[in-house]
């Protein structure tokens, strides 16, 4: 078989090149950055709005002149809330798009799978996943987590339970990296206040009935059932718990008890459900901007990804290099308590260009991280479902 460059092909190639050239030039100058949010799967209620917020921040930064005079080029991939799909998408972002950072991994199982791909290629990973084990991985500083870790969440939930006079609970948890640790930490915290953990069952979230698991929980006669679930399995559990005749309080993470899920279930099934979620700072300008972008009250993860993109841009500007290493080295420096207070990336980039140190506080609150990448503090909101509607109980 003859393989060669004929004159006709050479001519066609020559004609085609100028058409691609502007794109190539722009690609060379722009700074690639990626999002890996759950556009589909169990986290599909959050991923699209997270990607939308990330795009809006990138557009704002680009409209104001970019980072170090270069535009940000955003690529948004779908993790499918599935570790395998997440790893494939991360490889694509790193090996093909050459991103300086991946923002917005959501499910702990996905983040756990994607993290080694990131640290081995020295690419920054910003995540909203809560499992303690994530930041305990040997990531060499390439993970930043804006979501409070499981421990911070478990302690907060147990304190809330104790304050409402709850003395015992049973935990039903979907198979996940945080299932056991959250139960143990909640039990330990409640024990310090005279309460007791009665037991836990870890279930397979792909099933269509959890009657056996629920019967096991109800048999221990708990005052409260803690449902460490995702939305699809929570829907089944709430039905099964109601059917089993349990009418005490049920407690679940806010990411599972989405407004759409609550609206989709019969009112008696959801009545009395309490959800908790790390709370963004509703008074902050960043939060108001995210609300404006989405046209609705933002979920915590959309607020957090606003900060992921902003932190990546600011850290590169601070380090004067459009690289992942610059983000790695400077992500804590842009939250300098002695710096100029800024609440969005554009203002921060201007302040850095003017030679100031900055103290960035974004949509999810102050962005201060410890040595392993965990956020140092967070507010929590607790919501109660009554008559099919979720209403705020308290932010603490």
């Amino acid at each position, binding site marked *: 078989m003859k393989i060669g460059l004929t004159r006709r092909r050479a001519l066609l190639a020559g004609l085609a090149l100028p058409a691609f050239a502007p794109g190539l030039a722009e690609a060379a100058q722009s700074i690639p950055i990626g999002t890996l949010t759950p556009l*589909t*799967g169990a986290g*599909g*209620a959050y991923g*699209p709005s997270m990607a939308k917020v990330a795009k809006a921040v990138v557009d704002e930064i680009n409209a104001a002149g970019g980072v170090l005079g270069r535009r940000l080029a955003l690529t948004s991939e779908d993790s499918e809330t599935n570790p395998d799909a997440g790893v494939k998408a991360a490889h694509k972002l790193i090996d093909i798009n050459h991103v300086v950072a991946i923002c917005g991994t959501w499910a702990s199982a996905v983040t756990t799978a994607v993290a080694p791909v990131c640290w081995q290629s020295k690419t920054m990973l910003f995540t909203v996943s809560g499992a303690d084990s994530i930041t305990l991985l040997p990531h060499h500083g390439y993970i930043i987590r804006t979501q409070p870790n499981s421990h911070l969440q478990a302690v907060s939930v147990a304190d809330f339970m104790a304050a409402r006079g709850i003395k015992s609970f049973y935990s039903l948890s979907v*198979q996940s990296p945080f299932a056991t640790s959250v139960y143990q930490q909640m039990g330990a915290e409640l024990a310090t206040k005279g309460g007791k953990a009665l037991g836990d*069952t*870890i*279930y*397979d979230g*792909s*099933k*269509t*009935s*959890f*009657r*056996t*698991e629920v*019967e*096991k929980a109800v048999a221990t006669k708990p005052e409260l059932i803690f449902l460490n679930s995702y*939305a*699809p399995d929570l*829907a*089944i559990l709430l*039905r099964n718990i*109601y*059917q*089993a*005749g349990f009418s005490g309080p049920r407690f679940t993470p806010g990411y599972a008890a*989405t407004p*759409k*899920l609550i*609206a*989709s*279930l*019969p009112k*008696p*099934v959801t009545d009395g459900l309490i959800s908790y979620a790390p709370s963004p700072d509703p008074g902050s300008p960043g939060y108001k901007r995210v609300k404006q972008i989405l046209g609705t009250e933002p979920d915590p993860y959309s607020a957090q990804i606003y900060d992921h993109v902003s932190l990546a841009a600011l850290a590169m500007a601070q380090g004067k290099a459009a690289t992942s290493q610059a983000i790695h080295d400077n992500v804590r420096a842009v939250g300098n308590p002695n710096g100029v207070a800024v609440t969005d990336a554009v203002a921060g980039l201007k302040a850095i260009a003017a030679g100031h140190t900055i103290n960035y506080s974004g949509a999810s609150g102050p962005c201060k991280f410890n040595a392993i990448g965990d956020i140092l503090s967070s507010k929590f909101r607790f919501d109660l479902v009554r008559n099919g509607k979720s209403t705020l109980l308290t932010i603490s």
Partner: protein
Amino acid sequence: MIAIAQAIVNGVLAGAALAVPAIAFTTIFAVLRFANFAVAGFATLGAYGGWLVNTRLGVPAVPALLGACVAGGAAAVIVDEAALKGLRRRIRPGEAALAPAIASVAATLLLENVARFLFGNDPQGYDLPVFRDWHIGALAVGPQQLADAAIALVAMTALFLFLGFTRAGRTMRAVADNPGLAALKGIDAARVGRIATFAAGALAGLGGMLIGFDTSLDPLLGFRVMLSVFAAAVVGGLGSIPGAVAGAFVVGLGEEMATLVVDPAYRTAVGFAAILIVLSLRPAGLFGERTA
């Protein structure tokens, strides 16, 4: 003892829910001789079809099951005509029907995304009241699960009557038993294939809606149960309708009984171990004569 009895009750009800889509899967295998994994997609689209009729047109949930049958059947015929039929024709006698089976996996992903595009990712629910369990002695039984099992039984009976007492049903059985002989007798295999595909899609849609009654409706509804449905059809013997029913009960009971001895997190694994044992003893399945 009560725990064993309760696990049996739960297992039987879980098996009844699996039986309808498992029959759909095995019907297509019997008549068209390939594993159509797009049954998961037909179940999902059927569940959404029934949901539209139930919540948008205000038809009560049980009559709205007809909407699920129509949507599931229509999706099955469209997918078959557009993608799978052409691939089936290229299979030479004696060759494994791999291409249409793999194409059906692609089709189920496509249908899942059609559902996502049309209805979004958020869970939806049927307009259906919820009831507390009935307690019979120490046993708890859900009225909705009982109703679902009864509906599944009615659907299965209707299918048996269709296959046994109608001309279309008899031609379908003839093609399933011996396609060569059926062709010699002048039976139009393509037409029979379309009827079988529609009937299977309708059953899958019905099964999808019944599952949606107890869970919530989202684009992954069919995909979540596909492995168990496939397992039920294989255990029962691919191509055997009574086998699919028996297989569904083996899978349902196996998974529930497993929770008596191991943590519920492992029940799928134990259920499938039971399936391996059945297939080791009877490779063609409980009622099967052919292997995949």
